[in-house]
């Protein structure tokens, strides 16, 4: 019934990951950086699910659940840090905190 080659799923995951990486590299807004980190984690999970679907094993989906919990924990701590950042520097430019003076 299904004849989608695994390479096409992996190409999709790779393209999404490349977009996320390019977004992290070219944006200086902290919220945008967090969003592109989410895009990259999602692409990694997509690669896991594609591989698990290739061999008909549930392991890829279990790995996606782990990535999901990691992304949830990461985004909660990251958004708390964004709030603290904005209170301290009154901007969202990541270059404002290029020097950590403790």
């Amino acid at each position, binding site marked *: *019934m*299904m004849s*989608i*080659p*695994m*390479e096409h*799923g*992996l*190409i*999709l995951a*790779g*393209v*999404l990951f490349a*977009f996320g990486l*390019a*977004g992290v590299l*070219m*944006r*200086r*807004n902290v*919220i*945008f950086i*967090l*969003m*592109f980190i*989410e*895009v990259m984690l*999602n692409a990694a999970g997509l690669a896991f699910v594609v591989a*698990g*679907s*290739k061999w*008909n*094993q*549930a*392991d890829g*989906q*279990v790995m*996606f*659940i*782990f990535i*999901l*919990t*990691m*992304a*949830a*924990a*990461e*985004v*909660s*701590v990251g*958004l*708390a840090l*964004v*709030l*603290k950042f*904005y*209170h*301290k520097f009154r901007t*969202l*430019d990541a270059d404002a905190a290029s020097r950590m003076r403790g």
Partner: protein
Amino acid sequence: METLFYISSFVAVIATFLVMVKTNVVHALLYLVVSLLAVALVFFVLGAPFIAALEIIIYAGAIMVLFVFVVMMLNLGSADTQRESEWLTAETWAGPVILAAVLLGEVIFILVHKPGAAFQAEMLGPRQVGISLLGPYLLGAELASILLLAGLAGAYHIGRHSGEKGGGGRKRS
């Protein structure tokens, strides 16, 4: 099923690209939600309906709502949009994009011209995923729960510290 896969993957790629070029945070969040929905459809076509539901509920639901809450709390102005649009002029990124596109074309050529196996029709539902998650991956599930607890405690600590420090910092400056 194949056309569903290709259409949704095109939507995912286009939406993610628009996230990358939008300068308004809320517009970019909307495109990111569209991208996550398209990826959820890809999961469904690939035979993982449980993961598709989790993608919609947790990624497109909970995490994006957190982003929207933070954007609303910060109440960003238009000066930020102006500054971000200055970073996106064509002279700065045209050369690296052309080089990276050549590399991407090479990778796609290698992957397409190698004979690959097709997908099987079998669906892996929540039953197999649950048996595998709480069977051989039980230690991983416990570690994930500890990670969630650490994230909860860390977010609470950083957020509370931010409130007290913010008042003190404004008094000092």
